[in-house]
Structure formats: structure tokens, C-alpha cells
């Protein structure tokens, strides 16, 4: 009998397959009002991008054989960065355990999600594709660049961006696990223990492997490989930035205490509606805050909110960003940032920092994107009016020097992938959706038949 199926002809040589080949471009943007973020607004100035990187900023620049864009009277700003989104993902929540640090949403990237194009049409070039908030320790996230048009999911990833992971506090993990599965956490007390347990076990795990690796041949047994513990260890080692879904002041302080006990420094709180109440503590710990411009009251833990949150946090020295968490909001983050001028008194530059340099800092990519500086990546958004005006319309969005959105060349049907098994065109009444599912995608199916009393 033939033992096993031989595969001489069928072996897949996949090594060349997955090497992402990021397309970069050259482009010269002439005579715009350049909002650099780090060096003021430079009027009537040119920006030259070569090989995907900003190579020159100045007056009367020229370059041979380079596409030139006339931005006279227009506003040229760094590509907008969204520190919290769920676009371009096939899966958001693996909701089966309070700790799913073993999963990566980077495995679920959908480069054909039309939300990517729509985000580009709002000037957004980079977003933080996050796991959902069903679990206290959620999955690992992926920082993506909006290279609309590529088909290899790997080409969407921002190669070299630091690893990040989703944590979640409060109602969502409590609802999913305590209420849903009748396991810890059913309270904010339980949520704390998930973190403490995770970190303590990871320390044991690290010790076990360290001992084994010191002398494998003499080892009594081979330790088990545990992907969750691997991830928790990497957090302890400072290799992963935590982005924690949070609302209430008490739970925010709780996580700061836990992290302090384990020496974990890299933390950015997400949503953090009551961050304004503990802004001094956040600033002292060096924690970031990524907030909504004005969302509140849709659930009880955001009832005591203020749209002045971003202003209070900024004024207290917390690195603050404004995020979308929504395929709709992501299209007008410039407008969300401008709301800090109604709710607070941030300057234009402070307001725009909330959607450029600050989210870049929170994602650990501030050396590459977030401002218009020589040497940074060629990610640019061009507006017809000042981007903080309600009347501003994004004209062109450039990623790595490649034009990915151009209002002059906006096709009627921009879809790339068409499923031949689906209806030719179908209308969805999005207003009929409830708002409760923002961060809880994939969780509702999970609870489909659940009985509660």
C-alpha cells in the first residue's frame, strides 16, 4: 500500500507569494498651504515626494518626470490617521474567551472593503484595524495603510509598525462573558482579575521556557506552547502597545494600577469617555487617550460624558487623538477634530494634531507618518478649504506617494471585488441598524440563541 500521498508536483512554493511589494510613487504638490503640524502652516509651498517618501518641502521646487499637482489655494495636510477602526476586516471579535490574545485581526484583512476607499475620500491614509471589545484581553490589532487597489491583504499592512493589542473594560466584556457565558468577568472586579491572572501566568510561562531553553536535553519535559501566554509575555516585555477600550474613570485607574504592578508602560486608552476625570493620572503615567469627538449617552457607562473631553485631556498634557470606530465617522475625522473648537478652545494645530501626529504617537509610528516633514512617508490629504471648516471637501489622498483617491477621478462604481454569486445591486437601510454594535461585531451571531433570565 502506498504510504502517503506524494506531492512532488504540487508543492507550493509560497515564499515568494507573500512578500508584500508595497507600491510607492513620486509626486510634486505645488503651491499649497502646507499644514505641516510640526512646523506651522507654510503658505504657497511645494511638497515633493520621491519613492514614497517626502524628500523636499519648499518654494519653487521642481522635479523631472514627476506628476505635478497644482494645489494653489488648497490645503495640504498629512494623511489623517485613525487610531481606532474596524474597517477592512472580515472578523472583528473572537468572542469565545475573556482572553483571546492569541488571535490577530491582521489575519482577517479584507483589502476590498469599500470602506477603505470611503475613508480615503475623507483624507484618511492610515488606520488601526482593531479587534472588538468583547473580551477583557482581546486579539492583536493591525496598523494598516489605505493602499486601495491591492489584492494581497499583506500589502495593506504597515510593515514594521509596532504590535498592538486590544483590551476592553466595562460593559462589553461583562455582558459577553459574565451575562452571556456565566464566567468571570461579571463585574469590573472580575475584569481586573483577567489581566492580573494573564500577566501572572505569563511570568510563570516565561520562567518555564527559560529553564527549558537553558538546557533542553536535560529537561524533564517540553513545555507546552501557548500562544496566549506568548502574547502576554510580549506585553510584559514591552513589545506590544495596549489599546484599551474603556469608559469609566474607576476602571481606567484600575488598569493603570495593574500595569504599574507589572511594569507595563505602553498603554493608550480608547474611547475613554471619562478620561477627563482622571486626566492628571493619565498624564502622569504617560498613557495616551483616543476619544470620540462627541459620542455619549448611547449606553450607561458613557452617560457622564462631555464633548470637551479632548480639550480637557490635551490641556492636562495627555497625548490625545480623535478616532472614528465607525465606517461612517472615519470619512470625516477632520470634521470631528474641528468639534474640539466648539467644545473647547484648541488651536487649529492642536485640533489637527488629534488626527495626525498624536494618533501616530499612540500607534508608535510617529517617526514615519503624522506630519509633513522631510524623510516621512508620502501620505498626504489635500482639501479645497481649511480642513477644520465644515465646508472642506477632500480633493486628493496620497499614500506612499501614490494617489489613492482623486475627486476628479472618482468612478461610479469603485468596487474591486464583485462576488458573482451576489445580487447585482442591493440596498441596505443602515439607519435601521442599532448603534450598539460598534465594537461588538460578530458577537451578536454568537448570542443568537442565548436565553437569559
Amino acid at each position, binding site marked *: 500500500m502506498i504510504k502517503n500521498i506524494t506531492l512532488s508536483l504540487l508543492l507550493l512554493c509560497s515564499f515568494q507569494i507573500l512578500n508584500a511589494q508595497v507600491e510607492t510613487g513620486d509626486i510634486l504638490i505645488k503651491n499649497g498651504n502646507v499644514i505641516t503640524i510640526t512646523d506651522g502652516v507654510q503658505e504657497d509651498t511645494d511638497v515633493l515626494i520621491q519613492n514614497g517618501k517626502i524628500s523636499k518641502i519648499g518654494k519653487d521646487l521642481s522635479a523631472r518626470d514627476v506628476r505635478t499637482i497644482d494645489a494653489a489655494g488648497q490645503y495640504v495636510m498629512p494623511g489623517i490617521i485613525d487610531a481606532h477602526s474596524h474597517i477592512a476586516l472580515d472578523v472583528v471579535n473572537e468572542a469565545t474567551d475573556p482572553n483571546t490574545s492569541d488571535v490577530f485581526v491582521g489575519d482577517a484583512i479584507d483589502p476590498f472593503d*469599500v*470602506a477603505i476607499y470611503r475613508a480615503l475620500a475623507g483624507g484618511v491614509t492610515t488606520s488601526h484595524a482593531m479587534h472588538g471589545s468583547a473580551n477583557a484581553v482581546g486579539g492583536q490589532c493591525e496598523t494598516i495603510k489605505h493602499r486601495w487597489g491591492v489584492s494581497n491583504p499583506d500589502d495593506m499592512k504597515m510593515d514594521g509598525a509596532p504590535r498592538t493589542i486590544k483590551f476592553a473594560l466595562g460593559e462589553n466584556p*461583562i*455582558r459577553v462573558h459574565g*451575562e452571556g457565558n456565566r464566567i468571570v468577568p461579571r463585574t469590573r472586579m472580575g475584569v481586573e482579575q483577567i489581566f492580573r491572572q494573564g500577566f501572572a501566568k505569563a511570568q510563570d510561562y516565561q520562567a518555564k521556557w527559560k529553564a527549558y531553553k537553558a538546557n533542553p536535553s536535560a529537561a524533564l519535559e517540553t513545555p507546552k506552547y501557548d500562544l496566549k501566554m506568548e502574547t502576554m509575555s510580549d506585553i510584559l516585555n514591552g513589545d506590544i502597545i495596549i489599546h484599551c477600550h474603556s469608559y469609566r474613570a474607576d476602571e481606567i485607574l484600575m488598569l493603570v494600577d495593574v500595569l504599574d504592578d507589572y511594569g507595563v508602560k505602553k498603554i493608550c486608552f480608547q474611547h475613554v469617555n471619562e478620561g*477627563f*476625570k482622571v*486626566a*492628571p*493620572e493619565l498624564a*502622569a503615567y504617560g498613557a495616551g487617550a483616543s476619544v470620540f469627538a*462627541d*459620542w*455619549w*449617552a*448611547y*449606553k*450607561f457607562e458613557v*452617560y*457622564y460624558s*462631555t*464633548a*470637551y473631553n479632548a*480639550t*480637557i485631556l490635551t*490641556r*492636562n498634557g495627555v497625548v490625545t487623538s480623535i478616532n472614528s470606530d465607525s*465606517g461612517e*465617522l472615519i470619512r*470625516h475625522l477632520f*470634521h470631528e477634530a*474641528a*468639534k474640539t*473648537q*466648539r467644545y*473647547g478652545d484648541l488651536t487649529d494645530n492642536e485640533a489637527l494634531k488629534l488626527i495626525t501626529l498624536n494618533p501616530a504617537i499612540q500607534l508608535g509610528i510617529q517617526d514615519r507618518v503624522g506630519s509633513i516633514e522631510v524623510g516621512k512617508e508620502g501620505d498626504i490629504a489635500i482639501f479645497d478649504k481649511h480642513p*477644520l*471648516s*465644515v*465646508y472642506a*471637501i477632500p480633493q486628493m489622498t496620497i499614500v506612499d506617494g501614490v494617489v489613492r483617491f482623486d475627486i476628479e477621478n*472618482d468612478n461610479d462604481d*469603485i*468596487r474591486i471585488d464583485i462576488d458573482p454569486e451576489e*445580487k447585482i*445591486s*442591493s440596498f*441596505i*437601510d*443602515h*439607519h*435601521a*441598524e442599532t*448603534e*450598539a454594535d460598534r465594537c461588538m461585531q460578530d458577537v451578536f*451571531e454568537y*448570542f443568537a440563541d*442565548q436565553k*437569559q*433570565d
Partner: protein
Amino acid sequence: MNRIIIKSIVILVALFIWGDSSAQQVAKSTYGDVLLKNATVHTITNGVVEGTDVLISDGMIADMGKGLSSTSATVVDCSNHHIYPGFIDGGTTLALSEVSSVSLTNDFNEIGDFIPQMQALTAVNPNSVAIPVTRVNGVTSVIVKPAGGVFSGTASLINLVGYTPAQMDAGFKAVAMNFPSAAKRGRRDRRSEEDIKKDQEKATKEIDEFWDKLRVYHMIDSASANKSNSSLTYQPEMEAMLPVYRGEIPLMINVTKDKDIEAAIAWVEKKNVKAILTGVTEGYRVADKIAASGLPVITGPVQAIPGRSEERYDVAYANAGIMSNAGVKVALRTNDTENVRNLPFHAGFAAAYGMGVDEALKAITINPAEMFGVGDKYGSIEKGKIANLFVSTGDPFEMKTRITHLFIKGWNVPIESRHTLLYNEFLERSPGLQEK
């Protein structure tokens, strides 16, 4: 599915919302004559007038013109400031819901498919924390509207000041209707195309049957009007629909998909009722047909994603403008609860994407007022109208602009809300990082 949370949260909500929350109570509104001096007045109906005074007296715009004076009035210098009529949102659940994920605080969706007798005004909570949050952005009146079923209930126009629903009532009612739809209700709608079609057909049939009963009810009711003992058995659904049937109040017909809009127009013509189309997400696809029907439209939210994956990214932004330019009378709505305050920003987007600032302003002032039959009282700065207006540092669509004074029914409303109170308390927290 949230029953447990709800139980625990309801108690909290009860404690916090309706109990004493002293630290975060906005100041009282005041009443009295106010003379706004030397403002740029955006009348809406009569253009922009500079250097003009507006006199508010007895809840009304008592006078308007240059160099007004009053012995009794508090004078407010409005130099370099602008006066706009209060904005009107054509569709919200403001004050009908406090915390949307806590279902026991949601009072806009009653059981039943044919329940026009359900009165939104009854469930308005005058102390909803979201009311001050909304009005400080210049939104002075909103439609509060029930949802769900076919005839969801009766919507009302309310002013955002007052301690009782009756004080807030702005004198307009309409029955809210969901037109049978061939649209998927959100991404998680798992119904097959066939099921959607069946549901739509079923609803259409039920409406026809209901309407037939209504016709008979109306006939008997009319015939027995002068008789002492009517044989008519009181039916609350029918009673609530009689004014609709008789054209005394309109139906607010919510309809989204292009084909459904056409069907709704045909239905309205057939039934010969007074109607306002609401939602109208795909109005841009059938704008000419809506214009030809003469039906007014309340559309929004403007900041929304397209209903079809292949559709251009900006269709929702452009929708209001396309309809307006085609000759449709358009008003805007946020369809929101706690963020109705964004109405001027939705209007700003509509303005930028083809509607223009003047039309966008009308779409949240005079247009809805006229649609609601209260164009003589609201929607513009004119002598003799109710004093719903605000003073701002500039264009109220722009985020940078500040609203400095707000008047609703002549009440001088403080520019305060939970959000401003928390700001004041926490901007410089004390104690800060000190131990005590």
C-alpha cells in the same frame, strides 16, 4: 438579551437621572424683554440685514429694525454677532430615550404594528439631560417621533424648553408611518430576498385592509356626527387616523429605497392624504419624480454611508442638495437621540455638497416650519413670530463659531449643559494629583 444589565442599570439610572444630581444641574432660564442691539440678522425669509436690532418681548419677536429702544428690556450688545432663527430638526427620538442601550429608558417603540394612537408627546422627558446639550448648538425645536411597526404612533413638534410636555408642545402633530420596504434592515438583516419581498407584500396588504376599515370608520363617524347615539364602537387606532384620513394632519412616511419611494408617492396619490416623506435615503435616484409629486421631504442624517456598496462615497452628503435642486422642498433631520446637536453640522455638509448655505439654512428653519403648518410662528426672524432664535459669533454651521445667547419662546436659556458643567469642573481638577 440585556435583561440582567437592565435590571441593575435601571436602578442606577433611576437614581441618577430622576434623582438629585445637584452638581450638574444647568441654570434656570429667565423670562423678560430683551433687546438685541446691532446684530447681523439672518432672517431667512428676508435676507441678511446688518446692524439691526431685535426686540424680544412676551415670548415673541416684538420688533425688528435699526435703532430700536425699550425701557423695560435688558439690552445685549450684539455688535459683530449674528442672529439666526432657532434650528428645527425634522426627526429625532430626543427626550424619548435617555440611554439607548438600556431598553427601559427607550420610549419610542411601542408594541404593535398599527398604533397611531401612541403619542410621542406623552413620553417626552422634559428633564432629559440631552435637551440642554442639544439646544446650546442652536437647535430650538425638534420633531419627536415614534418608531417601529407600520403606523408607529403620533409624532410631535416640541420646543426645547419647558417643564412639562404641554409647555414644550409647539402645536404640530403627524402620524409616523413606515412604508413597506424592500430594503435590508442593516447588515445583520439575515432575511432572504424572498422573505423581504414577502414581508413587504404582507405589510402592503395589511395597510390596504387597515385603510379600508378606516374608510368605513370615517363614513360612519361622519354620518353619526350629528346624532346623539352613535353606533360606532370606539377604536383608538381609527380615532387617531381620522385626522389623517380627513387631511387634517399629515402622515410622515418613512421610506428609503428608490423603488419604495416611487411606490410611496403612488400610494399617497391613490389615498389622497397629506404626506411628508421622511428618510428618503435614495431620493437622489428619483429626485425628479419626488419633485413632480409635490411632496415635501425630511431627509437625513446627512453624514451617512451609502446604502449600496457600489454607490459613490458622497451620495448621502449630496442627497439633500440633489433633491432641493430638483425642486423638492427639503428639510433635514439627524434621526438621532443624544447628538441632535449635530444638526447644524449635517446642514453644513449638505451645503458643501451641492445644497448651498442658503438652502441648507432653510432646510433647518423655514422649510420644516412650513411643512408643519407653523411657518407663521417659527422658522425665520420676523416681527410677530415666536422668539426662537440665537446669537452667534459667526456662521453656526462652522464648528469654531460660538453660540452666545439662546432664546426659546422668549425664554433666555443659559448656554449650559452637562457637557459644559463637566468641562468647568474638570478642566483644572482640584485636587489634582495630590493625595488629598
